[in-house]
Each structure stands twice: as C-alpha cells, then as structure tokens.
C-alpha cells in the first residue's frame, strides 16, 4: 500500500545509488493500536503509555539486524553523555569497537575547563578560546560552549563524577597554558578516566541503554530523497564473533573520536583510526578543518632508547614542558643546541614553535628524534621532579640524570572533523556528531587546553533536543533492512590468504604513517603536500590491487581492512585541507605561506566527493560500484 490511510502520510520516493526504491508500507500509529506489516519481517511494538509519542521499539532479536530508536557510535564522553539523556525517550544502542572505556576520553587526563570562579567570566573563557584558535573559531559556538560549560560540569557531578575540591569545599580549579584564569576542573590527574567511569556506571545502570562492545562500525546506512540525505543506522562488525550486525535507527550520533593513528607517533589509543570522519565522508557529510592536527613536541622516542621496547608502544609518553621550564635543553643528534636558531625564547618558546623547530630539524637532518637534556641539573632534583620519566627511561636502559632523553613530536588531537551546527546537526538528516569527531567551530586553528572534554559534553547535550524532535516527527518509517547490500566476511578466502592480507595491511599502514609524518607533519610545504597526495594515492591503489588479487570482494569486511580504508580517507582529507589553506594559522604551518592572511580566515570545507574516480576505500561498502 502506498501511504497510510488513517493518517494520510504519503509514501516517500527513495533513491539509493541510482535505483528508485519506494516505501511500500508505513507504520500507522494511533492511540488505540499500533501495527506494522512488512513482507520481510515483523516488528513487535511495546506500547507502554497511551500517548503515541512515548512509543518504544523493543529490540527485535534477529541477530543480523537490530532496531533501536537511537544508535550511538563511540563510548567516550560525548557518546555516553548523549545516551544517558536520550534513553529517557527511547531505546539506545551504544556501539564501541573495543572495550567501552577504550577511548580518547579515558586518556584525557588533564581536566575540563569551565567558568566556575566568581572572578572569572564567560567572556574571558571565550577570549582565551578564540585567541588560542587564532580567530578561526565560530563565535557563536564559542559563546554557547563557554556559557553552558558550568551546567554540564554540575550535571557530571550529579551523575557521580568526583572532582578535586579545595578546603573551602568548592571545586579546585587549576590553570593551564592559554587560560587567563583558573578554570580547569579535574580529578587528580585522571579526569578523563574519572568522567568515563562515572558515565559508564550510569549507562550500565540504565535499562534503556545497551552497549555493544567489540562492534566495529563499518558504514552508515543512508538514502537520498531528492536533495536530502538521511541516515538510517550503521553496519557493524562484531569482531569477537566475526559477524556483521546491522543497526537500524531513527537517530544516529557519531561520537567516534580521533584519528591519531594516521601518524606513527601518537598519544591516542589504537582505536583512534578516524572511523567516524571516514564513514561520514563516504556518506556525503561535509568535513571541515582537517588540516589542524595538534602535536605535542616532546614524546619519548622509542627509537632513541638504548634498549628498544619489544612491543610497539601504543600511546606516546609525553615529556612535560616542565622539563624545559626547569632548564632542559634541546639538541639535535649532532649535539647542537638548535632552539636559539628559531626563537629568542629558546626552549621556553611556545609549544607550537618548539614543535615546528623540532620537526624542521628532523626533516633537515633526516633523523627520527632529537634530544632533550636535563642531566646537567642535580640528580636528586631530577628524580624528585620527574620520577615518571626517570622510571620509564630506566626500564629501557636510559638514565636521564646522565643522558639526554630522545624525543619526537606526537599527534594528539584533531581539531577538525565532521562539520556540525550548533546542535551537533550535520548535513545528513538524522545524523548528529559530538566530541573530537565533530568540527563545531570551537577550536578553530588550535585547541585550548581542556576545551575538548568540554566541547564533547556541551554538544552531546545540545544534540539531544533535535534528536528527539527528529525521532518524533519521523512517524516510524521502518526501512526494509535489506535495502542495502550486507557486508560479508571473507569466508571464501583461505585462512592463509586472510592472514597475508592482514600482515600486508599492517605494512601499508606503517607506510602511510611514514608518508604522513614526512610530508604532512608540523612544518608543511606545498611540494611536500603534493608529494604526499600522490604517494598516498599510489599506496592506496597498490593496497587495493593487492586485496582484490587475493580474492577480496567489494562488500567484504575485516577489522584491519576497514581501519585501513578509514586511515586512507582521513589522511587524504588532511592533505587536501592542508593544500587548500594558503596561509599559516595555528596548527597549520606551511613554508610557502608562512604568515596569517586575514582574507583566509575561514574554515576549510570539504564537500562530498563526486562519484568519479572513487576507490574501494572511498565508497560505502553496501553501494554498488559504478
């Protein structure tokens, strides 16, 4: 039947990759009964209130397809905070690719910034944010975040997060670089972990929220209706059971975090492979400001340690600025002190300058690390102030009281991502974003310390209202869950072949990271970026050819292969964005345009790619290739 007689909702004409698919049935809701008929399946509704608005779909337990009102991709602070709110209005699935606590949030150990001191002001926080962002921030976003921050902190406390207090009973507020006032709320030095703990506990206690761990998100399920794109859910791979699970949802929140692993040295945990940005880009979402990648200048460089760690370090050990502040000196491997060449403030120059200087030295000399030497200070002082560094280095045969520390910059945070409006909305209807995966306009060209947890909290909350509105106006149009071809496991391939593919993919990943570090690092140039563009393109073609030679098919999925697609996608977005910005601003520095250009003070926007020349990595897996 076309359309629903009682409520007269007309059927919609859907287009999916050139095919017209008509909706053959509508769900008819009235206060007396609810019914749905489908030629493919039956869904049973639980009507717990008389009101038609408070309808919940019970999870239809077909193991291959699950139905929820809300699906959240990612279990960091943004995803969990959102889940706790929307669970009051419907069923929620939280999908996370490893353990729930394995997210960048958990490693965000500093604090959350908010105006909580009477002598502080929203205007101050705004100004600090905008100055740090080199005026590329969206003013309204900054105002909203700085204004709503304090309430979000209070809610966190109400949810059970324990932050440090002063003797006067008030929250203890610290002050970090770039802040004009004390405003960092923290829990010892494990704020992210504490917030994550509190949120996870609340989520576990919430009967409306189901967490699906070890579910890797593959591609968003979308359809197009003339000029509008709609998101209907997400395909996932259960990496424990090696099964594809399709989630159909009315509303999807993408909160999948960062993409540190496009670089070889990063503070991010292994899960941060840019899955969200890549999926959104493939689904035709607008991406913004990907060139602004934040690096920390001095991470411990394993290559320089006398005893090499036998396992590759998953997230970098950052050496604090306090080492330089206390008198540490930077040398290149020829034992030349190089900071005076770059800045009169020498080792005390701003972090960005230090990062660029180190990067420049490494590129010029073709080396993998520089040296940070504190050994000229008294031994007891070094051990008292920096016991963690001392202990870590000693494990690998390095005594920092007598030898310099090998350091290299590490990728830390992506300021850019999926372009979001003031409520986390994207250009795809039913798709919202929050957290590091989003580009909300808060960070601009550089993130202010401790603003990332704040951004996640504020936008997770702001996305709730429009999500609920979207849910309620959708009038429960259950899609034919088979409208999109299902991804398949590589069961037809021999296990040797699958293993070879996995190994080769790891090699390719290392190569991609190498290209990114060499050519899309901290100090950039047009020629190096163009080289990167070409090399990455070639590498991707080479990898895909290898895959398909081994018998890989277009709709096949595997964790390593899917992560590799996403890494390629994010890497290309970073390169293209960097090429597009012909000025230097904040985190993006290019030798060919080394100064700020007022006329260039706008975000870098990447629109959905045309369907020409798309690689396998660039397409949603369920689409038929042209």
């Amino acid at each position, binding site marked *: 039947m076309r359309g629903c007689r009682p409520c007269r909702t007309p059927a919609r004409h859907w287009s999916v990759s050139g095919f017209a698919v008509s909706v053959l049935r509508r769900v008819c809701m009235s206060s007396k009964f609810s019914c749905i008929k489908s030629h493919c399946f039956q869904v049973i509704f639980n009507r717990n209130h008389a009101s038609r608005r408070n309808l919940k779909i019970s999870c239809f337990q077909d193991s291959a397809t699950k139905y929820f009102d809300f699906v959240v991709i990612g279990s960091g602070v943004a995803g969990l905070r959102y889940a706790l709110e929307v669970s009051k209005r419907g069923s929620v699935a939280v999908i996370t690719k490893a353990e729930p606590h394995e997210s960048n949030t958990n490693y965000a150990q500093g604090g959350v910034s908010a105006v909580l001191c009477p002598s502080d002001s929203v205007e101050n926080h705004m100004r600090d944010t905008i100055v740090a962002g080199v*005026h590329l921030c969206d003013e309204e976003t900054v105002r909203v975040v700085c204004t709503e921050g304090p309430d979000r902190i209070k809610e966190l406390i109400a949810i059970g997060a324990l932050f440090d207090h002063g003797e006067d009973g008030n929250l203890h507020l610290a002050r970090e*670089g770039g802040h004009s006032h004390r405003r960092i709320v923290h829990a010892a030095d494990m704020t992210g972990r504490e917030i994550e703990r509190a949120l996870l506990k609340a989520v576990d206690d919430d009967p409306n929220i189901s967490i699906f761990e070890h579910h890797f998100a593959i591609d968003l399920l979308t359809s197009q209706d003339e000029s509008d794109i709609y998101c209907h859910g997400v395909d996932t791979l259960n990496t424990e059971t090696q099964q594809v699970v399709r989630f159909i949802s009315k509303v999807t929140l993408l909160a999948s975090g960062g993409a540190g692993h496009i670089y070889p040295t990063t503070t991010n945990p292994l899960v941060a492979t840019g899955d969200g940005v890549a999926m959104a880009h493939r689904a035709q979402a607008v991406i913004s400001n990907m060139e602004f990648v934040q690096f920390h200048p001095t991470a411990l460089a394993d290559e320089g340690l006398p005893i090499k760690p036998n396992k590759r370090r998953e997230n970098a*050990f950052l050496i604090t600025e306090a080492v330089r502040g206390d008198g540490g000196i930077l040398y290149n491997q020829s034992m030349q002190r190089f900071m*005076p060449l*770059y800045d009169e403030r020498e080792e005390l120059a*701003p972090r960005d300058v230090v990062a660029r200087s180190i990067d420049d030295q490494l590129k010029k000399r073709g080396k993998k690390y520089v040296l940070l030497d504190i050994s000229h200070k008294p031994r007891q002082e070094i051990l008292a102030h920096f016991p*963690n560094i001392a202990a*870590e280095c000693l494990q690998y045969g390095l005594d920092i009281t007598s030898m310099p520390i090998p350091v290299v910059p590490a990728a830390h945070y992506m300021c850019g991502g999926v372009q979001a409006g003031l409520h986390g909305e994207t250009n795809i209807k039913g798709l919202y974003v929050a957290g590091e995966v989003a580009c909300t306009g808060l960070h601009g060209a550089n993130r202010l*310390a401790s603003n990332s947890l704040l951004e996640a909290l504020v936008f997770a909350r702001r996305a709730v209202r429009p999500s609920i509105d979207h849910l309620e106006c959708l009038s429960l149009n259950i899609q034919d869950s088979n409208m999109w071809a299902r991804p398949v496991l590589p069961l037809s391939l021999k296990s040797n072949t699958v293993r070879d593919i996995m190994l080769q993919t790891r090699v390719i990943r290392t190569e991609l990271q190498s290209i990114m570090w060499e050519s899309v690092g901290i100090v950039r140039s047009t020629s190096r970026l163009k080289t990167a563009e070409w090399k990455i393109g070639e590498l991707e073609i080479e990898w895909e050819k290898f895959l398909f030679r081994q018998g890989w098919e277009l709709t096949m999925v595997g964790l390593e292969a899917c992560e590799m697609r996403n890494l390629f996608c994010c890497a290309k977005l970073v390169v293209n964005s960097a090429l597009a910005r012909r000025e230097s601003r904040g985190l993006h520095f290019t030798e060919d345009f080394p100064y700020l250009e007022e006329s260039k003070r706008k975000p870098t926007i990447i629109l959905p790619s045309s369907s020409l020349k798309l690689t396998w990595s660039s397409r949603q897996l369920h689409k038929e290739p042209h």
Partner: protein
Amino acid sequence: MANKLRRLLVFSHDIGNPRVGLVLGHARSLSSSSPAPPEAERRAVVEDEKKGEERNGPGSEGRKVDGEDEEGDDDNGGVYANKVTGEVGGPRGPEPTRYGDWERGGRCSDF
C-alpha cells in the same frame, strides 16, 4: 552551512603580524601564529609556585610524590590538603600546571 562562514568576532589587539621569532644565520623563522602565555607571565606563575614551596620550609623542592613531603597537613582525617592552593586530595609536589601543561612526575597528560 552558511552559519559556518559567519563573521567572526575579531579582537583588534590580536590582528596583525604573528610574533616573529629571532632569526639567526640561515634558519628560517618558524614563528608561531598561535599565542601562548608570554614568557614573563609563565615565569611569574612558576615563581609563585616556587615561593609557595619555599614557604613550606627548606628542602621542599626535593620532596617526592610518594607522600613524604610535608607541604600539606593530614589533619583532614588522613586526606592530604595542599597548604598553598587549599586543594584537598590533590597531587603532592609541584603544581602540575606550573608550565602550562598538565604533568605528573614528568609525564604530560594534557596540554
């Protein structure tokens, strides 16, 4: 997404040339276009903290984080309270943010 191209609030005292670092010899200027707390301000913050430490008695700089330092008192039923900042249950030893980033024992966890 027209809202993304809205006019940004501009602070006149910050427009203009980036701070240019001193260039010596053949090295290029890698001046920062993003500001950071001025060196003087940072030194002042550090000095405040150091003064705080000195106030608590000589040799306080040599205290380790393992609970041996006497900067705070344990009158609150065994919970450590920092005499300088008034923070209860916080980290012992030098202020983690004294150089702008968040550090404990030398490892930076936020910046």
